[in-house]
């Protein structure tokens, strides 16, 4: 009986994922309303629960894809994978007010450049402080502080060792998780009220997953503006990391 039920869930992975995420959302909304009196947005709680489930999945299976490695919940991998994520992000553009987006164009570009250079400098500085002296390792860890995709792409291009690559991925992942979790709490400090401010945020905070989840938990209507800018962030980082940033680092540390 129980085996039969398990088989049903396993053979209908995506549908199981819909049911599971629906349940997580329901619990989060209830927790938000009753435990925090609505001060912490339900979406933020749901994302934290998701990260907790990912941790549990990692411990259970030793895999790299969190809950999606547990065969019963493999459908979560499809539901939260790049395909459906990007599909849903694009759909949010339907609510974009064109006038607002145009006004913030230049600010968005400036934010993107700052959002690539500043994290890189911080990441490279930390790597240097911890005793890394070769340009390849410093660049890779610095690039990881931009996003967890820019790190390994840069490292692979300039020939970094696998432990440095893992470090750069870890730095990017922690950054994405921090942005997801901390954004709703810091929304007031960051001045996240307008489409323009969301675009500044998207360019500077970078990681699409962090930005979109953080904004979703702050004010859903800001998501498309932040995502619109953040989507260029990874591409710009992958472009600058193995080229300009690597050469600059090599020129400095020799």
């Amino acid at each position: 009986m129980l085996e039969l039920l398990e088989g049903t869930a396993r053979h209908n992975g995506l549908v199981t994922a819909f049911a599971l995420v629906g349940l997580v959302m329901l619990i989060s909304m209830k927790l938000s309303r009753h435990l925090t009196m609505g001060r912490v947005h339900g979406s933020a709680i749901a994302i934290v629960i998701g990260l907790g489930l990912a941790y549990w999945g990692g411990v259970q299976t030793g895999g790299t894809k969190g809950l999606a490695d547990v065969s019963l919940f493999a459908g979560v991998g499809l539901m939260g994978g790049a395909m459906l994520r990007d599909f849903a992000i694009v759909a949010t553009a339907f609510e974009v007010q064109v006038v607002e987006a145009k006004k913030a164009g230049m600010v968005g570009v400036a934010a993107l450049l700052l959002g690539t250079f500043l994290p890189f400098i911080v990441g490279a500085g930390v790597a240097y402080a911890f005793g890394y002296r070769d340009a390849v390792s410093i660049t890779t860890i610095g690039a990881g502080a931009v996003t967890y995709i820019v790190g390994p792409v840069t490292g692979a291009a300039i020939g970094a060792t696998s432990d440095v690559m893992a470090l750069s991925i870890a730095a990017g992942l922690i950054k994405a998780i921090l942005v997801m979790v901390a954004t709703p709490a810091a929304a007031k400090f960051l001045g996240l009220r307008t489409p323009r401010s969301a675009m500044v945020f998207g360019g500077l905070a970078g990681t699409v997953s962090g930005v979109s989840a953080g904004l979703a938990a702050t004010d859903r209507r800001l998501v498309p503006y932040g995502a619109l800018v953040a989507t260029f962030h990874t591409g710009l980082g992958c472009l600058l990391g193995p080229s300009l940033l690597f050469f600059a680092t090599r020129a400095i540390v020799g």
Partner: protein
Amino acid sequence: MIIYGTALLAICHLLGIFLGDLLGTLIGAKTNVGGVGIAMILLICARLWMHKKGWMPEQTEMGVAFWGAMYIPVVVAMAAQQNVLTALRGGPVALLAAVGSVVVCACVIALINRGEKVEGTALPPLEVPTPATVR
């Protein structure tokens, strides 16, 4: 028909990703450059154009709006498949690099956004989600 909206979304998505890959190959970045952003711009343009032509009945809009509303659940599923374990095992270098860059960026964001005049452009306060805001 609802599927017209979803199909429009799908076409914009595919075209955007394709152009992003093309752009990445052209400039030698070996990755997709702004594919999702291009797709979003295409969708915005398609909406404006079709609205003007009167080809955007409410049913068609719902085919897009549904996926826009599915966004948060999809993000929760995304969070559930992050490699949290590796991130936590990265140790102090990864942690400091991440915290440092987040703090620096947060201060710059706050600095830039403080300079913005808010009157008139701020979104009205979000209350309990009503059908209008969920769309």
